[in-house]
């Protein structure tokens, strides 16, 4: 029965992916992409990777889906896609070698290995947190995570450089229930974000998932409940977008000064330091998603001239 469920999930994933690539209209492709993300998060649940499932559902399907919908709306929903993207021969030609290479690489691996699981679990006590994924992300491999935070910052700076900081129109009184629903969901989303952040130290959750939920809440608030969207500029913009990278850097340099190694935390304070970094990264992730989504909307001035 469980195998059947997994097979159905895998088949559904491939089917939705093929349909998304072949969808004739942009809108259809985006909706199928969102469905793909949700199916993929179910697959992560089945593989026991709850952290990835949360991230995929919140960021992959949720915020990225909204971002793509917004883009498709600006390009024109019904717009035909370039034929080159839809040809079956091209798809097969490009997909087959990649799938083959991945297959060969997978079967070349040495059977069942525990990977680095034993090493991580053996030293989990020193990490300051009880959840192995958080221990790896924020302590053992903190350097990688820091660079990921910087990548996100670079994306935000890129979008800002192109789109500017002028005010954007909100969506206005689109319908009566929308503002009310948002007012109901907002407090819950903020609590949920805080909960995911706090929970990350002992169970699946953490800065990126919390940031995605808080960012979605921020997008909803600015988009629906404000007549015009004033995005933060100047110092406030820099502080909100850069907080995660800066906090990481400060803690890392403190480690270099006190412990002799960049991003080395003293064991007694590791838990607190990780929570501080996670708080900063969650705020920056939320800010980044807000800037990426709302920054892409045409500004008031552009719309008037159009």
């Amino acid at each position, binding site marked *: 029965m469980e195998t059947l469920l997994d097979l159905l999930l895998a088949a559904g994933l491939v089917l939705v992916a093929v349909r998304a690539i072949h969808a004739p209209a942009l809108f259809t492709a985006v909706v199928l992409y969102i469905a793909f993300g949700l199916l993929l998060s179910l697959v992560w649940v089945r593989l026991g990777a709850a952290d990835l499932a949360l991230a995929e559902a919140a960021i992959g399907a949720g915020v990225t889906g909204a971002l793509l919908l917004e883009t498709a709306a*600006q390009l024109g*929903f019904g717009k035909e896609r370039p034929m080159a993207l839809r040809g079956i021969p091209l798809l097969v030609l490009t997909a087959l070698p990649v799938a083959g290479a991945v297959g060969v690489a997978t079967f070349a691996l040495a059977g069942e290995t525990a990977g680095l699981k034993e090493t991580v679990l053996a030293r989990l006590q020193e990490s300051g947190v009880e959840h192995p994924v958080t221990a790896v992300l924020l302590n053992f491999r903190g350097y990688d995570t820091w660079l990921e935070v910087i990548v996100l910052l670079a994306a935000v700076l890129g979008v800002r450089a192109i789109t500017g900081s002028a005010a954007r*129109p909100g969506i206005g009184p689109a*319908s009566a229930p929308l503002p009310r629903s948002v007012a109901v969901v907002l407090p819950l989303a903020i609590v949920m974000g805080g909960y995911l952040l706090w929970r990350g130290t002992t169970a699946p959750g953490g800065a990126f998932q919390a940031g995605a939920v808080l960012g979605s809440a921020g997008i909803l608030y600015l988009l629906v409940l404000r007549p015009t969207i004033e995005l933060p500029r100047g110092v406030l913009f820099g502080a909100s977008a850069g907080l995660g990278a800066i906090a990481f850097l400060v803690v890392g340099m403190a480690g270099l000064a006190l412990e002799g190694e960049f991003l080395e935390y003293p064991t007694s304070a590791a838990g607190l330091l990780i929570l501080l970094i996670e708080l900063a990264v969650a705020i920056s992730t939320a800010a980044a998603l807000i800037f990426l989504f709302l920054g892409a909307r045409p500004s008031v001035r552009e719309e008037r001239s159009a």
Partner: protein
Amino acid sequence: MILLDLVTAVCLIAAAFFFLGGTVGVLRFPDSLSRLHALTKADNLGLGLVVLGLVFQASSFLVAAKLVLVWVLALVASATGANLIASSVADPSRRTAGSE
């Protein structure tokens, strides 16, 4: 316990029926408003029955409350989304995204 399992099974099967009905409606109904009707009615009832069925299996009151919360949030989102789509169908000038 067997009685609870039975109630759960009945709820889940009924839920599957409503999901199936809603899906057939989305595929077969001719216009947007009828399709929306099929989707929201069947989805909300189907998910509600899934939640009801799982509540009988919940290990504690807290778990049951969380399940019900999931349903309530889905109702809020579904009702809001359906209203937006419906008003966009009724009056294309009120379309919001992309302000076309």
